[in-house]
């Protein structure tokens, strides 16, 4: 009994304390006096749930670049506000406005999940806050929903898929089946692939979709076997990617029908595939053995700082910080001026570990898309699939 009582009391106390602190926070005039030499960065990324490791890698990459600059960006002290977005779109607008309205951040950085990123973009547009998206690939973000204050340091779903469409056609495949989850990212990837592939004379025989996050692929493998296409193109990520590749291999299809994937099929998943991924070809804006010195330095520093190898997510975080720095440099120590920062960022050339890139009119990277092949535990570079590929930014009126 006594124990129960204590628990209850501490709980009550905690709640009272919470109430008081919320109240205090509510009534304090926030961010009235902002020191000119500081810049407030709001990191809104997933730190729990399926994408937790991606959120961590992006954060690490971002902070690494800031560290390399001596803890400052363009002379400005960086102050972080961090929110776990849980990859939950239903909390997204609120989380974003927490950073914007409560913490008065100068820049929003986030996130992985496209649905959450769309909600963040909405908040950014409404509040005219600068937003840098370090992963989410939804085409809309730099398409119909593009905005002067919204930037992306990663890619659009269309980019790697489009590049793969061309590659698959070049490799002589005429007749392809696609498989992905029935959600926007999957659908956009298939659309990008189909555009390039059919332009080059191929034919997508059938588009297969399964409900997200269902991973029972067996019926589709059976269907693929009976359709007998020349090749299969897929988009999956995380646990679904691992399972698909393993099932595809175990069904014996890997030997007879080559499998191609867009982007993240083989990122962070090769180990878990346990050999089934060997030889798989994918397209992305990063690969494991790029030869540029920037990448080598980056990987070395990252491995030392975080005791693990960096991945594409870390690169995207790193580049988000680089983009911000280019913008902030233009201020030359003056008070944070969003419009000036945007202007500088738009014309920036980012010296990324992935290779230098510029930004399109819609603020999406114009970048090389690499063709990679799984060898051992790495996505080894095969070559450049598309040089300086720009997202068409359909629907962007900027």
């Amino acid at each position, binding site marked *: *009994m006594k124990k*129960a*009582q204590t*628990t*209850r009391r501490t*709980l*009550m106390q*905690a*709640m009272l*304390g*919470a*109430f008081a*602190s*919320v109240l205090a*926070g*509510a*009534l304090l*005039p*926030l961010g009235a006096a902002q020191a000119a030499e500081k810049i407030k960065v709001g990191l809104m990324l997933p*730190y*729990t749930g399926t994408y937790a490791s991606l959120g961590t890698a992006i954060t690490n990459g971002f902070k690494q670049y800031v560290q390399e600059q001596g803890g400052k960006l363009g002379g400005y002290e960086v102050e972080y506000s961090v*929110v*776990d977005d849980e990859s*939950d*779109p*239903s909390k*997204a*607008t*609120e989380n974003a*406005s*927490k950073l914007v*309205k*409560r913490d008065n951040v100068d820049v929003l950085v986030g996130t992985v999940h*496209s*649905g959450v990123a*769309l*909600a963040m973009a*909405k908040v950014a547009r*409404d509040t005219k806050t600068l937003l840098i998206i370090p992963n989410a690939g*939804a085409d*809309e973000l730099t398409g119909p*929903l593009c905005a002067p204050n919204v930037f992306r340091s990663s890619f659009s779903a269309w980019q790697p898929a489009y590049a793969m469409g061309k590659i698959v056609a070049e490799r002589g495949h005429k007749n392809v089946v696609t498989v992905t989850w*029935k*959600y*926007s*990212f999957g*659908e956009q990837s298939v659309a990008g692939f189909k555009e390039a592939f059919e332009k080059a004379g191929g034919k997508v025989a059938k588009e297969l979709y399964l*409900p*997200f996050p269902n991973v029972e692929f067996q019926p589709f493998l059976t269907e693929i076997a009976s359709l007998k296409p020349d090749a299969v193109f897929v988009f999956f990520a995380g646990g679904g990617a691992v399972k698909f590749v393993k099932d595809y291999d175990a069904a014996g299809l890997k030997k007879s029908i080559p499998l191609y994937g867009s982007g993240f099929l083989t990122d962070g998943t090769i180990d878990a595939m346990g050999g089934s991924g060997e030889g798989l070809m994918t397209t992305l804006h990063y690969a494991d053995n790029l030869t540029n010195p920037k990448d080598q330095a980056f990987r070395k520093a990252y491995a030392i700082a975080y005791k693990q190898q960096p991945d594409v997510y870390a690169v995207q975080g790193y580049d988000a910080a680089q983009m911000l720095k280019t913008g902030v440099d233009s201020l030359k120590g003056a008070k944070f001026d969003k419009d000036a920062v945007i202007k500088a960022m738009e014309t920036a050339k980012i010296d990324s570990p992935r290779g230098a890139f510029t930004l399109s009119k819609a603020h999406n990277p114009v970048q090389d898309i690499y063709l990679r092949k799984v060898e051992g535990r790495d996505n080894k570079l095969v070559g450049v699939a598309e040089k300086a590929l720009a997202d068409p930014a359909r629907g962007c009126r900027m």
Partner: protein
Amino acid sequence: MNSQVSTIFKLAVMAGVLAFPAFGSDFYAEMVAKVLILAIFAMSLDLLVGFTGLVSFGHAAYFGIAAYVVALMTPKYDPANLWLALPASVLAAAVAAFVIGLFVLRTKGIYFIMVTLAFAQMAYYVFHDTPVGGGSDGIYLNFKPDAAIAGWAPFDLNEPHHLYYFVVAAMLAVYGLLKLVLRSPFGRVLVGIRSNEHRMLSLGYATFRYKLAAFTLAGALAGVAGFLYAVLFGFVTPEYLSWHKSGDVLLMVILGGMGNLGGAVAGAVALVGLQEIFTSVTKHWQLLMGLTIVAAVLFMPGGLTATPARIMARINGGKSNV
């Protein structure tokens, strides 16, 4: 808590809520508005769980459906009309609740819990997998509904303060409506059903119809909450219908104490408050949340509103009533 103290307390809270925008920042005003909307949501569920004895684990479906209806009714470059969009979204939630109710109310107990959950999942997949609602990415509400009646606009929801007081008014209206309904003959029957449905049948009540009516009303009120939520945040996603949302609202009801409208409001405040605190403490905040829930179930059977009385009883040397 005797009724006088309780009334004074409620009035004081109300005064605080009304005066809040004058002192608090926009962000916290938005948060209070969110809490009030969730309070509507929790009260609507309490009508089922606390007063009728129907533990619905799929209540988020009606919340989400209404949210989608207002989002879909809003043209891309224009606002929707409030006086059309609000009734339409509430009606859609009510119709969905009615149809689903026809199925789920045939079951009882554990079945009812699982079946309501499953139907909510079905609604979730309708919005997640089909293009009607923008799929998994959700859709924007670019403009808040326009309150104009024949050219005259009594208020403007784009004004944060107007929106805030609109939410306050809606919350008070729902609270008042439920109070009235609960003391009406209909409400009395619901409470009778919760206590002893079999006896209600043998007394001549068509309990199925009453339950269906309650389920539909609760769905409609959840729709009011969903509508306001969509308008407040301007973004709608399938996650509004997910079973986590249904779990959260159940949590509010039980944290506050079932069968008590004030408790549902207290539960909404408590849940949002706890989430705020825990997320500020650690990135593993869900662990704290889980532990709190487990502790609350084990040690606070009556919920928050019953706890002061229990503590008083203990302080006064009353016998243990755990």
